[in-house]
């Protein structure tokens, strides 16, 4: 299937990835190629086939409700781009 450039722009916005005007044409055609390749799936009859999310069809084990972590804020914030008073800083969030 053919995907339009404005659709790629919408997807890029959803994924929060900036694509420059000079790249967008190339990106669109590459992704079109990939989507054409995966279109082979559409021909497969999958009626009554349960989707498989996990290759072993295993089930979840549960963790006891215990506190196992201690405060390591200093270690984690030492590698953060911008922190102040224990908070991570980002450009102003407007609601």
């Amino acid at each position, binding site marked *: 299937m053919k995907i339009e450039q404005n659709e790629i722009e919408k*997807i890029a916005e*959803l994924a*929060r990835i*900036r694509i420059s005007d000079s790249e967008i044409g190339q990106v669109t055609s590459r992704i079109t190629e*990939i989507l054409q390749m995966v279109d082979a799936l559409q021909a497969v009859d999958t009626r009554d086939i349960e989707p498989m999310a996990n290759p*072993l069809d295993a089930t979840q084990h549960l963790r006891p409700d215990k506190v196992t972590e201690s405060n390591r804020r200093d*270690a*984690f914030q030492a590698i*953060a781009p911008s922190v102040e008073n224990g908070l991570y800083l980002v*450009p102003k969030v407007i609601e």
Partner: protein
Amino acid sequence: MNNSSVAQLVKGLRERQYSSVEVTRSYLDRIAAMDVHYNSYISVDEAAAIAAAEAADKRLAAGDAPPLTGVPIAHKDIFCTDGMRTSCGSRMLDNFVPPYDATVIQRFKADGAVVLGKTNMDEFAMGSSNESSFYGPARNPWNTELVPGGSSGGSAAAVAGWLAPAATGTDTGGSIRQPAAFCGITGLKPTYGRVSRLGIVAFASSLDQAGPMAHSAEDCALLLNTMAGHDPRDSTSSNAATEDYSSRLGDDLDGLRIGLPREYFSDGLDAATRQCVDYALQELESQGAILVDVSLPHSALTVPTYYIIAPAEASTNLSRFDGVRYGYRCDDPVDLHDLYTRTRGEGFGEEVKRRILVGTYALSAGYYDAYYKKAQQVRRLIKQDFMNCFDSVDIIAGPTTPGPAFALGTKSNDPIAMYLEDVYTLAVNLAGLPGISVPAGFVEDKPVGLQLIGRHFHEAQLLNVAHRFQQATDWHLRSPDFATGEQH
């Protein structure tokens, strides 16, 4: 001690023929001298490696040393290492030094192994040639004009070039087996859930699996003994019992039924590569194995299925890289939106962005059923094909790749051609099965791999077959000229 297998090093260290510091030093020196040619490492911390080796020597002297004490091991730069940069081959994590170890790293440390360094890889493990690495491609020690394969290309190159006795890799669609084949080494992708994923930077959660890369099946077994086991901190980790993966290496192959999927021996397979695989199968037959024609009818769908599921999972696994808590952050963001889009636009490379976009598309409103859900249904059909085969055969065999290593640059601008490199390896990940690539000869001096696929949790059997093959052949013992400095 140079060019010794892991098994030999374990013995030599225990018998005090040499110390861990000596072994580690010798590898560090080789890396310093040779890696300029291979670019197989992203980070090497000499001081930390020597300190770990000294500690290992003390344990060896004290006589309470666990199995891998003092053996230096290289790790793909996707495993988080406490206090040591973990870049995942990306600008996004170029400055990322995690304050924690992956479970795999913890287990190696607990078993006494020395972290030799962190190996090069395709960015976020997305690639089959190592060319998408932010640090430039690793090169194939057999011929540095060739790619080493990917995404665990650095680990394969380091082992093949004797810059590490063994290494770890991860395999989402062939990323251990394909580079192992290209570099003439042995690489095992265990059953999904056999090895903990905790602390491995996630690519595609339902496909990712870590495994050993070494010269021989025997060495892979030693590493797997350390790596395998349930991890309560990984919900997808299996609590099926592990076994001593070395214990059954010598079992004979009499009556072993090996299925040969006809789809793996069809048009796309290079003729010379096929010849190597055929010889290898004859060798197994001569040891008493029975070759059986089987079919995996949905094989043609593995590439499309994989290229929906893997990008879809990746697209959201990589959402956490947002420039807020760690990693790359763009300069002077004007607002929140700018912070996100520029950090991610600048921090990710081309292939990673492409896959995030494909995955986002496949999950987006109106397309979910046609793409993602459909792919998960076909995935079940693909797994069912294998299960049907395993009703009549013990293992499945075929080529690891359609042909030997290709030259750098030949496919890096053609994503689809690159994706087709993994046509024989993807299905194993989709079905969660264990698979191993074993050196099986050369095509024009380029190594070729034989792939063996087993039932879920039958790693010991795969290693047994691979080991028996290696007892009768010497492909795995060959080394490139560069590495040994002498003719092979």
